[in-house]
């Protein structure tokens, strides 16, 4: 069996590049040369644009340079010219797979400057919507990973789930993707009537569908194991050294989650585990994502069971003018740690806004781990990082 062979031989995939390349003598004798190749910038499976400059020796990659900046929309400069509340819809468009976390980070940063108190119900709803947004991002990312490996079915099931969550989100926020729901001082509106029951029903259904439609279909499949086990191996030391966050860090066994270690909002009151895995390869990242979906389901259930009553919007006043100074908001997005740094000069508009997106950092991983792999292994490694080009180019 293909999987067995590669697993027992196994190490061939994780050896350093030099181990599998023709030795200099042979190269000189036969006049072998490496080939430079462009991968991208356009790929039909991706919304955004990414260009990889590859140096190939046969089918083995010797060098991989990601070129970013094809989707640069100058979010930071735009943010400087807009009033504080009008920046929130801009942050929605940074990571368009997990918008809620992007809004949350910006609002946390400005609220630190404003020094306002958030009503507990608003905090709980924020966390609730954030977890839905995380599921909305994780499940399709599993689908994309398998689509890149040649399995077409899981993406259909993944998008079926995403569409259902989108319908819930539309009923609550008014939009299917660009929610613009979290506001400075609270959330836009309370949950509609009957919504908690609807969410509970959906979450129960998702929990029962997760096993047959995703795990049974994927786990234990020979092709999946052959293509992912040992591919894109990262060591914990390397991951910490590179500053990775999110699933690429946790799949190496390092336990770090902003929600757990630097809790914000309602996460202090929630009981959940940080999902980690020891292997640090593409298969481990898949297990981490499934585990995180399960944790999100657990958190949503907890929030729905103990949803506090009261207002959803703090007292903000008409014009929002923070005092001079700066504030930082850190949140755990679906891709890793996302932080926003807002500097205020006391006027209507921010003086400077900086977005620290996890994708920008995690993408540097390609340079480090792709060399030594075969050309088709690049796509599973991209599945490990789960990049969104809107997030790394901003």
């Amino acid at each position: 069996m293909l999987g067995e062979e590669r697993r027992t031989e196994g190490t061939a995939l994780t050896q350093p590049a030099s181990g599998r390349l023709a030795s200099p003598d042979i190269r000189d004798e036969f006049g072998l040369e490496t080939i430079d190749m462009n991968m991208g910038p356009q790929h039909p499976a991706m919304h955004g644009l990414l260009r990889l400059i590859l140096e190939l020796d046969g089918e083995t990659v010797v060098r991989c340079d990601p070129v970013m900046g094809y989707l640069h929309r100058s979010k930071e400069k735009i943010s400087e010219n807009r009033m504080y509340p009008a920046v929130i819809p801009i942050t929605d468009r940074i990571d368009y797979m997990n918008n809620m976390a992007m809004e949350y980070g910006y609002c946390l940063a400005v609220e630190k400057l404003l020094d306002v108190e958030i009503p507990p119900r608003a905090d709980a709803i924020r966390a609730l919507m954030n977890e839905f947004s995380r599921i909305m991002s994780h499940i399709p990312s599993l689908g994309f990973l398998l689509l890149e490996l040649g399995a077409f079915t899981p993406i259909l099931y993944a998008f079926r789930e995403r569409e259902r969550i989108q319908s819930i989100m539309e009923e609550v926020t008014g939009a299917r993707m660009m929610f613009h729901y979290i506001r400075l001082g609270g959330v836009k509106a309370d949950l509609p009537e009957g919504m908690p029951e609807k969410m509970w029903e959906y979450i129960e259904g998702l929990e029962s569908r997760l096993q047959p439609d995703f795990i049974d279909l994927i786990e234990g499949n020979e092709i999946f194991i052959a293509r992912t086990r040992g591919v894109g191996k990262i060591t914990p030391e390397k991951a910490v050294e590179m500053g990775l966050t999110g699933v690429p860090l946790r799949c190496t066994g390092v336990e770090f989650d902003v929600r757990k270690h630097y809790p914000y909002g309602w996460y202090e009151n929630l009981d959940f585990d940080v999902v980690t895995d020891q292997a640090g390869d593409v298969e481990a990242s898949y297990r981490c994502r499934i585990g995180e979906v399960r944790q999100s389901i657990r958190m949503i259930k907890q929030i729905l069971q103990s949803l506090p009553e009261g207002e959803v919007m703090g007292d903000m006043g008409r014009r929002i003018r923070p005092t001079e100074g700066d504030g930082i908001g850190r949140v755990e997005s679906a891709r890793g740690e996302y932080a926003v740094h807002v500097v205020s000069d006391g006027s209507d508009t921010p003086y400077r806004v900086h977005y620290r997106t996890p994708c920008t950092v995690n993408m540097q991983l390609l340079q480090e781990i792709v060399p030594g792999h075969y050309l088709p292994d690049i796509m599973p490694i991209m599945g490990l990082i789960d990049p969104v080009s809107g997030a790394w180019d901003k």
Partner: protein
Amino acid sequence: MKGMGITLKHLFDNKVTRQYPEYKKETFERSRGMLTVDMDRCIACLQCMRICPDHCISIEQEKRDADGSGKAKPYAVGFVIDDSRCMYCSLCVEVCPVNCIYHTEEFEAQAYNRLELARQFGERPVDPTIDPKPAVKKKPKAAKKAPKKEAAA
């Protein structure tokens, strides 16, 4: 073999897709569709124009005694919403003091020309290509002014 079982199960399940142009998805009360304005209620306070992040609303106002009270008040003679710029963030809807601008259920906009997407309300058409608020406050000046004031005090 296991995968085949899942396929068979879904074969007899309910359909999850629908034929779009014939069968449309239900819209919710909060769904944000294309904007529209009730010109009778508009008081030309220009708040929607100021808050709009995409500069898609342009209003032409003049002083007019529209309600016959003898006092000339601001009156919106021209009102344009450029749908080619609008991002449906609903900030203008929230800021409106008389609730005259609101979202409709309509969400399909198409035209051969970009200017056709600019919808005119009011009695006089407004040129949608002119930026309604071109002057952005220069940041460095504001930053410089602040320390001076402190020094003077």
